[in-house]
């Protein structure tokens, strides 16, 4: 494997990791506040649809992105209503949201575009274009680092950089601001927050809303950044992988980056080597397809210790019965 191949794989890994990273950070905000969310998948999906649909109709990818975020926020609202206001089961609510998104996107898509639930292909300003980072061209000659910069880091769409920026931002918000302190507290011990005179409900809604925004960006990236249209079920289980990455990352922002990048990397590698001839044995393609998942299990078993979720996670806050 030469250097260029490695760079290409890293490049691909970064692209593949981006939607996972958005979703993972989304889940991080929600779960840090004590609201479990297995509805990441659904929120990404509906955002993908509305961003593509709006971008197509208006010709503006920015409006598309906003629409995607808004749609995802609506589902977040439902999740909040069910799990915060009405203290319902958060897992059930998440499952319902996944089904809802999966059905609604196609249903609405069919009646709007008559294309079998797909949106028409996006062109020009209706999709995100790659951004060349400054000096990418100039630096590409520099040994080792140059290609790394110009091949791997440069040339991605706007949202990739936003996702990367979200990592330090999330870290900062969570650990360096008042809001973050309260958010983490409400996921650990809502009674402490309540008796400190802060609204548990308000905080949790805020967290769920942030989760909605980030899922919205994840969906928008899938449909208008990586792809150029909505295709039904196009999230293809990425919400679940993001959830796995979140646990993997032990609910921490930087670890979330590493975990999602690892998933992206493993997928990129298995894309690159559809079947692997080891000389004495040829690993079949199905094995290579499963490799990212197998490696995840191996890493999890071998190197990652017990992950303790936020203590109040999954439980509605009930003070009087």
């Amino acid at each position, binding site marked *: 494997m030469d250097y260029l191949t490695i760079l290409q794989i890293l490049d691909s890994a970064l692209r593949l990791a981006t939607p996972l990273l958005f979703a993972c950070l989304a889940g991080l905000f929600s779960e840090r506040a004590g609201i479990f969310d297995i509805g990441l998948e659904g929120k990404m999906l509906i955002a993908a649809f509305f961003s593509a649909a709006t971008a197509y109709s208006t010709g503006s990818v920015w409006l598309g992105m906003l629409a995607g975020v808004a749609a995802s926020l609506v589902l977040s609202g439902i999740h909040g209503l069910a799990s915060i206001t*009405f203290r319902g089961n958060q897992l*059930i609510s998440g*499952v319902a*949201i*996944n*089904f809802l998104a999966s059905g609604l996107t196609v249903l609405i898509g069919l009646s709007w575009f008559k294309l079998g639930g797909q949106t028409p292909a996006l062109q020009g300003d209706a999709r995100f274009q790659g951004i060349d980072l400054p000096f990418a061209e100039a630096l590409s000659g520099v040994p080792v680092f140059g290609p790394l910069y110009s091949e791997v880091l440069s040339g991605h769409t706007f949202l990739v950089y936003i996702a990367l920026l979200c990592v330090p931002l999330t870290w900062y918000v969570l650990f360096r601001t008042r809001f973050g302190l309260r958010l983490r507290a409400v996921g650990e011990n809502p009674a402490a927050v309540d008796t400190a005179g802060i609204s548990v409900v308000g905080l949790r809604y805020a967290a769920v809303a942030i989760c909605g925004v980030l899922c919205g960006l994840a969906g928008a990236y899938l449909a208008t950044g990586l792809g150029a249209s909505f295709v039904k079920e196009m999230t293809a289980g990425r919400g679940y992988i993001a*959830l796995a990455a979140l646990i993997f990352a032990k609910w921490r922002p930087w670890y979330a980056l590493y975990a999602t990048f690892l998933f992206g990397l493993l997928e990129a590698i298995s894309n690159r080597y559809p079947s692997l001839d080891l000389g004495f044995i040829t690993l079949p393609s199905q*094995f290579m397809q499963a490799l990212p998942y197998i490696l995840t*299990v191996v890493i999890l078993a071998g190197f990652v210790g017990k992950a303790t979720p936020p203590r109040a996670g999954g439980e509605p806050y009930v003070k009087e019965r």
Partner: protein
Amino acid sequence: MEQLPKWADLIVVPLVGLILAFSLSMLMVFATGHDPMDALSLMVKGALGSTYGWGYTLYYATNFIFTGLAVAVAFHASLFNIGGEGQAAIGGLGVALVCLFIPWPHWTIALVAATAAAGLFGALWALIPAYLQAKRGSHIVITTIMFNFIAASLLNYVLVNKLRPKGSMDPATAKFPEPAHLPSLGDMLNAVGIPFAKGTPANVTLVVALVACIFVYYLIWRTRLGYQLRAFGKSQPAAVYAGINPVKITIITMMISGALAGLMAINNVMGEAERLILGSVEGAGFIGIAVALMGRSHPLGILFAALLFGALYQGGAELGLWTSIPRELVIVIQALVILFTGALDNMVRSMVAKVLVRPKRAEA
């Protein structure tokens, strides 16, 4: 929260939830330019209006009972088994191997063997995640998700490269030999003089599913193992205090859970398709989560929830056959049913309470 009489909690609240879900869905039907009443009656009649409809409803319900029970058993021990999809798929592999390579004299014996194989394969597929959770603390949610993907790849390999009859396009095994075919519910009921539509996929596995419900009920509430796993699920420190081995209980619980998911394969693989096809689980593992949650992890609740989802599937199929309403509408209905009867049940409850409790107070 308002106190409701038990009957209202058990019957009125879910019913109102269902009505809400269907009202919203029908609004959507109307919005897409179809007649909601037609659609509704088509669904209900299609699913429950004839023995033919029941034959399909019960078939789907059988699948969901197994996966629902699987999720529920793990839930009682505080383990979230999202791996039903993979366990059921691997259970199918067990059924296929047993049915294809061993000549059975009679379906009854084949059924017993297939049940054992399906359970064993499902249990083994749950074993590794269980072991990793118990010994290494690897989160069971991640590992079971991963094992779903791995199962899909394994099955793909087996069906595309190994078990597929030469020259067949279909990534599927050959048809099982005749003695390994299970009698359908129609055959069985007709034999005892009860008229029931033939040619529907519901089969003798339904009986196995009902037995599984009873088994799980006894397991959870009447056996020592059940006692221990519930105690473990409620409080791990307390379990240690009582001398319950966390590793052992995690592994046993997950294997039972996996076995139940695996048993689904006797219904869809042996009972219906009579061969193993790729992707035969068709999401039933995930529906099982909803079924278990809605059924409050109780076998009786699971039975009803599974019937509800089975009816939705069959009603949706009828809708697809006779109208141009897109099949995705059924998914939306499912979502709304889960939402209103499962997640927003407290909202429905307080609505019901407003109607039921207020007037009584006024009287008092």
